């Protein structure tokens, strides 16, 4: 694990500059608010400088993948704690068990009634093992389907926070129909008669992520990734060597800006410079604002429009030419 350190040492000077500049802007802004002074003449050039510097901080795709996994990166529940009230976690698929990698329940999202669905990676070692690092078993996806039924019944818009390396590749998961459970979840979500806003907050690995990713809007945090396969998985298929993951990450074009360009997401949510883990409150504020804004935009539509909007959105994704 030498790479994360290399990443940090090569990046620190620029990131440090950016963070200092951000702090100065924040100070000036709060001074402006508290004193009522017009500080725009001072703020405007600083903001322009910040924008310029941000563009200069170029990270490789692999460096972004590592930020998506870095220790201390906020998990779904850390965002939920900051952005919701009255979250009531509902348990179980009513058939086999309760999956702790994929959890959910109704909550107030910045004051809006929603049904939350999310992959939770876990915070300490014990918690991570209990949640299989956010890799759900079939009962997790079947619980998601059950919660989507409730969302429809009670008119709760669905907010899905995606953060998984993929569905759990275990023997029992296969016995209980992992592929079937994911397919059912995709199908159920496409039929929702309420709006759905999804956000990839960390890792978006394959079908296990897509299972709760059928949103009217799909957003992604700046340093999250979303792909058909993890860089390690791709590397072990291509080069029979998972250590070639950095090369695979480049080939897979899996970063937030890539996905925006491919039309797979509607919006990239900016993270605090250096990554969401450096300022969880700011990251949460950005996520909360974006999700709430999309929920509000969708709120005026009819159930038919939510269903057809989602269908049209996904129906047109893909790249091909016609003869």
């Amino acid at each position, binding site marked *: 694990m030498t790479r994360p350190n290399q990443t940090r040492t090569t990046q620190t000077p620029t990131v440090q500059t950016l963070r200092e500049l951000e702090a100065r802007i924040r100070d000036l802004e709060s001074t402006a608010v508290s004193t009522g002074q017009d500080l725009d003449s001072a703020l405007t050039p600083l903001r322009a400088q910040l924008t310029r510097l941000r563009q200069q901080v170029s990270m490789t795709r692999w460096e972004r993948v590592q930020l998506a996994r870095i220790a201390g990166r906020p998990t779904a529940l850390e965002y939920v704690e900051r952005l919701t009230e009255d979250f009531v976690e509902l348990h179980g698929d009513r058939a086999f068990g309760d999956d702790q990698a994929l959890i959910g329940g109704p909550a107030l999202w910045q004051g809006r009634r929603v049904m939350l669905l999310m992959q939770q990676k876990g915070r300490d070692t014990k918690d991570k093992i209990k949640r299989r690092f956010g890799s759900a078993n079939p009962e997790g996806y079947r619980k998601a389907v059950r919660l989507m039924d409730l969302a429809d019944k009670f008119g709760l818009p669905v907010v899905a926070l995606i953060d998984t390396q993929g569905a759990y590749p275990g023997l029992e998961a296969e016995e209980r129909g992992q592929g079937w459970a994911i397919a059912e979840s995709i199908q159920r979500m496409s039929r929702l008669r309420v709006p759905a806003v999804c956000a990839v907050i960390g890792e978006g690995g394959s079908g296990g992520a897509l299972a709760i990713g059928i949103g009217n809007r799909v957003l992604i945090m700046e340093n999250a990734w979303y792909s058909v396969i993890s860089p390690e998985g791709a590397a072990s298929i291509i080069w029979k060597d998972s250590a070639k993951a950095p090369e695979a990450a480049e080939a897979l*074009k899996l970063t937030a800006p890539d996905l925006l360009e491919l039309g797979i997401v509607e919006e990239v949510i900016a993270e605090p410079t250096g990554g969401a883990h450096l300022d969880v409150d700011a990251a949460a504020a950005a996520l909360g604002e974006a999700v709430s804004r999309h929920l509000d935009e969708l709120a005026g539509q009819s159930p038919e429009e939510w269903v057809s909007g989602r269908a049209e959105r996904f129906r047109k994704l893909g790249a091909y030419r016609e003869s």
Partner: protein
Amino acid sequence: MALDKFFRRRRPQVNPPSEADTPDLWGKCPQCKENVYLRDLALNAYVCPNCGFHHRLGATKRAEVLLDGPIEIWSGRVHPVDALNFRDTESYPERLARAQAKTGRPDAILTGRGQIENLSVAAAIMDFEFSGGSMGSVVGEEIARAAERAGEEGLPLILVAASGGARMQESALSLMQMAKTTVALEALSKRGLPYISILTDPTTGGVTASFATIADVIVAEPGALIGFAGPRVIQQTIRQSLPDGFQRAEFLLEHGMVDMIVDRRQQRGELAKLLRLLHPASVGVAAPASVQSEQAP
């Protein structure tokens, strides 16, 4: 053997391999290791006459085995592109060119209209010979179009899955085909038309986790490997050997994941029976007398 004769008689449309196709007239069955006369194999729907092993089929041969006569082809207009400029040990366009030259089709899918025991159906057949039947944008688009056209024309849809999963070279675009095919299949579902999938060896990954398993009825071929995660990945995760027969069709039937395992030589008969029962209107069969009398005053 009587069954063999039955199928030989009923299957004149299965073209025996030409001399050019098969320089060797004899092949070895991978299961029983016996030498098999290839012409016999072709006449037996590519099922080993000796041990019943179901050989993998490319889409053209599959269409011949599945349908009464020739397929009226719908697919072929949609071509893959290298949207990601994907390069690993070779470039994606190079890989595509090789697979296209090998199979003579633009991508890993053949769709069209055909007949099963004189019932009209839409067929979507994945081609394992094209890049392991991997699902990229073209496969997704062709399946979506076939599902929509089946809906418009009031045809049941029969899908034959044969795929290692989503195509890595199209990354997230491939992943999105799982959603695209699912929403397109709604068109069929809303019209109450039957959708039957046949899972053949192998059906794994994103194909298992999307259109292949949301069918009204799921049929599997004997011995087919069917699953989400590959056996090697599972073994690495759980660090123990996998039981015999794990992820095989028989294992899945036992675990309640498929409706039935049907020998390839009986598939047309079973499918026709099902279609007549599930949706007489779509196959041009008159509703049973009891239903008609109930509607009478």
